[in-house]
């Protein structure tokens, strides 16, 4: 009797949590500004360790001449706009061309927003017939300044995607924890049966890392064929590090709240 009461309460709470999640998703709108191509690859560059994803995304936008095709509108987002040439823009936007859609955030995201934001973007991408989702990010490494060659690791939503990465010579992140937008993306894509991959370049935890972003872009080209010249990114490394200080500082604060350092933890293996 007690057990039935407990399980009923548990079920109610689970349904409530799902409803709340759906409500949060409904509170997020993706406004399209241009026609969205079908069957593109969708990429994610969100603020995280070393700002690898954001730096890589920013470089891709300028190198490939990607245009803003959609933006996120939601009361869940902090009351922030980004001004470009005096005009307001959402901090979360989608850029693209015929082959690529790139979701990028110009502000550090609070942990509690990551689920609804990622779910909305993935649902939207799924509606556009996106053929693959790839998140670009970093994996912090101690004594990063002593590393001459940076490695890129991959984790995937399915064994098939993992094999694609392995066949391209990318090392697999076999065991461990993942915290942040890429974690939500992999889990949700796995649930939906969408092919997804996360590329994680070794990087500084707390400092912007353009070299790591360049390395991640090289492996992105290896997996997808989307080639981006990274020479300017490496040339402008110091300038980028200087410009990215404030965003890195805000991101650090959010990463601390999100318990990002759990990625250093050794997991208890449960098969």
């Amino acid at each position, binding site marked *: 009797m007690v057990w039935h009461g407990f399980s009923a309460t548990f079920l109610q709470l689970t349904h409530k949590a799902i409803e709340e999640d759906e409500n949060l998703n409904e509170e997020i709108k993706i406004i399209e500004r241009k026609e969205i191509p079908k069957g593109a690859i969708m990429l994610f560059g969100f603020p995280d360790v070393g700002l690898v994803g954001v730096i890589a995304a920013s470089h891709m936008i300028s190198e490939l001449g990607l245009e803003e095709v959609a933006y996120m509108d939601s009361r869940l987002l902090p009351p922030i706009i980004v001004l470009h040439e005096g005009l307001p823009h959402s901090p979360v936007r989608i850029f693209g061309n015929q082959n690529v859609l790139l979701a990028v955030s110009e502000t550090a995201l609070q942990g509690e927003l990551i689920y609804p934001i990622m779910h909305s973007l993935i649902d939207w991408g799924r509606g556009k017939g996106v053929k693959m989702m790839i998140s670009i990010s970093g994996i912090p490494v101690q004594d990063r*300044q*002593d590393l001459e060659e940076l490695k890129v690791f991959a984790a995937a939503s399915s064994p098939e995607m993992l094999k694609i990465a392995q066949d391209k010579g990318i090392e697999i992140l076999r065991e461990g924890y993942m915290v942040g937008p890429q974690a939500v993306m992999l889990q949700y894509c796995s649930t939906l049966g969408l092919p997804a991959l996360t590329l994680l370049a070794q990087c*500084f*935890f*707390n*400092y*912007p890392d353009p070299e790591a972003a360049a390395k991640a872009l090289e492996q992105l080209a290896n997996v997808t064929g989307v080639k981006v010249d990274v020479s300017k990114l490496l040339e402008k*490394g*110091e*300038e980028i*590090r*200087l*410009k990215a*200080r*404030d965003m*890195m*500082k805000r991101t650090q604060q959010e990463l601390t709240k999100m318990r990002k350092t759990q990625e250093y933890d050794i997991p208890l293996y449960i098969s």
Partner: protein
Amino acid sequence: MAEESSKRRRSIFDLIDEYFENLEAWAERVRETIMERPSWNCRTCTMEPLRDIMVTSNEVIVTVDLPYAEQNTIQVKPVSSDTIEISAKMRRKVSFDDFGITHYRGEFQRFHCQTRIPVPVYMDRMEIRFKRGILEIRLPRKHEYEIPIE
């Protein structure tokens, strides 16, 4: 001996005073952490660098990100028993225009910051190195007392 007798003389009021002093110092540190301020200062023409502190069992490692810093201008000075001051000149002047910002005016050519070291250290045994634009300061920890294990 003198130290022992001074310890014995401490009254409950001394202890309360010390407790409140410690509490105030802690509140000040929290305030410093929480207080939002720009990462640049137009009056002193300086930028505040990103930095990080790691405490290990035998040393404290402070790292500071110093893009554009001229290696021979980097200075690390202890300003008290638990605080160090870091400054460095940049190879080029940077202005708000360089960041596309037109509503502020100012140029910067130095990094400057102060960092509190959270545990006692030997300031005079500090080791410094600069690699890939990252300054690394290593300070051996002072283990002032040890609790014997029975």
